[in-house]
């Protein structure tokens, strides 16, 4: 492995479709840190993954000089702190940092479960309930975007920051979901105009564009995943 400019040995265990894995990939790109991307096979977990994340057995895991760091937003904070010479990802003001952590957690705890809920719903009713929740979430996030960006392109201001990465990593899945649900509008020019503009800028950013998969690829992958979730539910 090349010296990587004294960055040490950097590996990322993950998989291309996972939005959680996209987060550290974007962060490493922002910091211009080269890394080895170790992709897991769909449906099985490597020994390295099980050894590196014995508690959750989940991706992503960052291995920095063989030390494992788990949980996507925690990995992003680690990357920001270790490679502090590069463009900063978290804001410098303590209150702004608290706001950033709040919204990143909101995406994971409140918003994302409804993505899974809508995609893998077994009834029309359940699907509609999940979609309603997602739309409410989008309205909240639109409000947060307007307030936090203060007229700039990103939640992080002139450049991508912590909330941008946390929510932006969801965009491929968000777009795929809109198609899979027959044209439901989550990014809506009328209701979420700010987020529509933000989504286009985020997706085009150099640190992001090779990481965010095409919508069609996610739709293909989603079919496999939904089948797996439904099979697991049927057998439990």
């Amino acid at each position, binding site marked *: 492995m090349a010296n990587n400019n004294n960055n040490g040995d950097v590996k990322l265990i993950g998989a291309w479709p996972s939005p959680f894995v996209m987060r550290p990939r974007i962060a490493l790109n922002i910091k211009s840190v080269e890394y080895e991307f170790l992709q897991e096979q769909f449906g099985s977990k490597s020994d390295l993954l099980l050894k590196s994340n014995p*508690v959750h057995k989940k991706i992503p895991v960052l291995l920095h000089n063989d030390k494992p*760091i*788990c*949980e996507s937003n925690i990995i992003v904070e*680690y990357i920001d*702190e270790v490679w502090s010479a590069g463009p900063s990802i978290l804001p410098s003001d*303590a209150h702004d940092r*608290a706001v950033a952590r*709040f919204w990143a957690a909101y995406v994971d705890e409140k918003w994302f479960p409804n993505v899974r809920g809508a995609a893998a719903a077994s009834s029309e009713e359940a699907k509609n309930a999940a979609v309603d929740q997602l739309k409410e979430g989008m309205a*909240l996030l639109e409000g947060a975007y307007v307030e936090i960006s203060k007229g700039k392109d990103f939640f992080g201001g002139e450049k991508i920051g912590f909330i941008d990465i946390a929510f932006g990593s969801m965009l491929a899945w968000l777009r795929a979901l809109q198609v899979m649900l027959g044209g439901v509008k989550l990014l809506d020019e009328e209701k979420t105009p700010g987020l529509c503009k933000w989504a286009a800028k985020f997706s085009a950013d150099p640190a992001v564009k090779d990481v965010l998969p095409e919508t069609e690829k996610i739709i293909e992958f989603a079919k496999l995943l939904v089948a797996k979730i439904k099979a697991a539910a049927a057998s439990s």
Partner: protein
Amino acid sequence: MADVKLLGTWPSPFSYRVILALKLKGIDYEYIEQDLSNKSPLLLQSNPVYKKIPVLIHGGNPISESMTILQYIDESWPETHPLLPADPYGRAVARFWIKFAEEKLSSASMIFRTSGEEQGKAVRETVEVMEILEEHAFGSLKEKGFFGGEKVNMVDLAYGVMGRWFDAIEECSGVKVIDPLKFPLFCGWAERFNEAPVIRDNLPGRKELVDFYKRRREMMLAAAAAASN
């Protein structure tokens, strides 16, 4: 220094995480007890997304979610009693265990809210969580230590609720979850935590906690019984 207010409820363990952090740092604050059955305009304005306590208001700026508040406190008052390690890897590990606490400790509250089979399920889930913690988290602590080494840090505060509060929950629910023979490392740490400087003078009284959870449990079981009739 700008003023500090804490919106909380007694004896919420989430409120107490913030109280203990403020006390460890020696920060003066105004505590404003909230009535969650009749939420104040200040609470609704300060935490419009979740409408929950605790909320810290510093110089008019609100911060919510107890562990986010603790990170904010640590970053705003860095000079005394650091609550996270200085090195990025240590911090990443600390944040991992904090997140684990936030995600996995809720099954414990189900123990006092339920009975019968539902309670059995909550107990089993809590024991599973404890097994992971005993092996992976408390297993890494030195004999006399805390997650913060010789002093209590944010991870200790995240789990600190499990000592005094669990004890009260077990007593009022009539179930023993934390067997000292099965979880010796956790139990040793919990004793040290309860006796640690500043912590020991700022925990709620055991009798008051037990009485509180007894009353809550009676109310919840009565409501559940009425709902199913």
